[in-house]
């Protein structure tokens, strides 16, 4: 890790704060009935997205899960388009059809927002295959949880990517739980990075609560993949501070475990350090929070005011081709 300068400290903290406040706003709006369906918050895990995403190039691709607000926001989807999507409005990134679990933006190569656990890993393999086939030096970054590792689609995707040496970065957000099931109750091998060996894939583990550590790990991984050395498995240990979804009573985690992890709050840790090394001041923090608040106020107002997709457009683009019936 290089010394922290003001510029990068601002960027890191900005991303962390934007995601945190966005998620908090979503939780409120869910309670207020503005957002419906499933809502999976990223609070506690922000350092993963804030650490990885800025290291990707615009030409790279991102494929993610239903817990992807943080990925989408840092990747560059506007808070407006995300909020409008969650409000079910036509101005949303998917015309309000996708909601929280299905955020897409083709122009940013952000391929979801996929809600079948591990179902998106093969897509990432295919995106990587397309790049390898055409000789493009791009990377596909694929985010998924520890729970996804048990799925057959994980296994098949890992083997394919490694067998064909595709430029795919697999990022396992190991938050220690798949819904209410603790890692040791769903994985025989709890050291997930070790699983990569079974696919002859290079792997690393890093602290997913420290945005600088994440960024450095991502840099190493991306260098490897970009050099054409094949795919890479990066396990980031993290924790979600909230329930799995808004339906989750959250009875399955010991209180002291939660408390312990809360001490590793990625925002707290990073802002303290940035201040300690003099990269940021309290005034910067206040300023940043103000900026983010303004952005989110605007996004919410925008979403609120935006019209819904007219019912007549329900059947628009079920297919793209012209069809007889």
């Amino acid at each position, binding site marked *: 890790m290089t010394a922290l300068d003001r510029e990068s400290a601002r960027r890191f903290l900005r991303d962390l704060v934007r995601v945190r406040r966005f998620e908090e706003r979503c939780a409120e709006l869910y309670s207020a009935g503005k957002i*419906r*369906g*499933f809502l999976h918050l990223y609070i506690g895990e922000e350092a993963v997205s804030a650490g990885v995403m800025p290291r990707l190039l615009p030409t790279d691709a991102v494929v993610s899960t239903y817990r992807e607000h943080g990925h989408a926001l840092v990747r560059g989807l506007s808070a407006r388009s995300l909020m409008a999507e969650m409000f*079910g*409005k036509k101005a949303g990134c998917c*015309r*309000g*059809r*996708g*909601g*929280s*679990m*299905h955020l897409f933006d083709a122009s940013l190569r952000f391929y979801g927002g*996929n*809600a*079948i*656990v*591990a179902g998106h890993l093969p897509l990432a393999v295919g995106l990587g295959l397309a790049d390898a086939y055409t000789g493009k030096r791009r990377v596909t970054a694929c985010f998924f949880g520890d*729970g*996804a590792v*048990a*799925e*057959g*689609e994980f296994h098949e995707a890992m083997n394919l990517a490694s067998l064909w040496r595709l430029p795919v970065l697999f990022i396992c957000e190991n938050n220690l739980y*798949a*819904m*209410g*099931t*603790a890692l040791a*109750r*769903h*994985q025989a091998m709890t050291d997930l990075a070790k699983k990569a060996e079974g696919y002859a894939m290079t792997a690393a583990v890093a602290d997913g609560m420290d945005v600088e550590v994440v960024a450095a790990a991502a840099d190493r991984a991306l260098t490897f993949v970009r050099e054409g050395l094949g795919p890479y498995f990066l396990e980031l240990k993290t924790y979600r501070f909230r329930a799995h979804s808004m*339906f*989750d*009573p959250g*009875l*399955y985690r010991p209180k002291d475990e939660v408390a312990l992890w809360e001490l590793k709050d990625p925002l707290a840790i990073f802002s303290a350090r940035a201040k300690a090394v003099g990269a940021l001041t309290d005034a910067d923090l206040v300023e940043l929070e103000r900026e983010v608040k303004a952005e989110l106020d605007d996004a919410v107002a925008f979403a609120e005011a935006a019209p*819904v*997709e007219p*019912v007549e457009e*329900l*059947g628009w683009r*079920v297919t793209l081709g012209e069809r007889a019936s």
Partner: protein
Amino acid sequence: MKTTYREALKQAHREALKKDPRVFLMGEDVGRYGGAYAVSLGLLEEFGPERVRDTPLSEAGFVGAGIGAALGGLRPIVEVMTVNFSLLAADQLINSAALLLHMSGGQLNVPLVVRMATGAGRQLAAQHSHSFENFFASVPGLRVVAPATLEDARGMLWTALLDPDPVLLFENALLYNLEGELADDAGPVDLDTARVRRPGKDVSLVTYGGSLGKTLKAAEDLAKQGIDAEVLDLRSLRPLDDAAIVATVTKTHRLVVVDEAWKSGSLAGEIIARVMEKAFFELDAAPARVCTEEVPIPYARAQELAALPSVEKIVAAAGRVVRGHG
């Protein structure tokens, strides 16, 4: 006693777990979490982790393990959290559970119960709003049922466990909160017959599962218009109770089928085809289907509602069938 569909299911599980030591429940988050729809909340504490077994996210794996456990002498209840993930276990359900008995020359029956939540209507968007009942109902070797009432939620599980063959129970997720009266001594019910939930003489509304409520409501609205609709709840989707279907059509001579699946390839189509084959001269008007529009189901509320069957659509379809086109 006043209760809910969820609670009726839970009591059915408790009864089964108590009655037969070979019965156990397994699936994603059925234990510590209490079930994605809280059906099994408290059962882990009551029966322990061997009998209320949390599984990893491995739908093919644990459904297949359920089949193997059934072959090994147990009576597994496997919960596939939702029908949407059942595609991942389709190979096991079809190529193993359904085929084993016949292709082993009648040796290996699979006394397995698989439960799953189905249907749309909660703004969960395209990947979480499927209705694949008819696909599974098309497979010989399986039995497929859809409890639509508190009694059936309470009573179908035990009968399914007594069945020597694989039984799939589809629980429409909108029903879990359904409230109503249930007899204190409510117990097992048959899995074979369709039931007339409302007698009528002008038109038959045939439906099942999550659409029963809408259909009954539509029948009330139709009554106000002077149309006396009969509502038939299929209950069993495989085998279908052909006699009951033919009986209602023979009585009313008009048919509307209500089914939350996409129209093409729906069970509703199968019902119409059977009526044509078995009671061609009974119908006085073209039959109609009220199904989901042929689109991936969107998140936005208005769009989702527009995609799904509704009371209004059923009333309108029945009106057309009874009064003629227009």
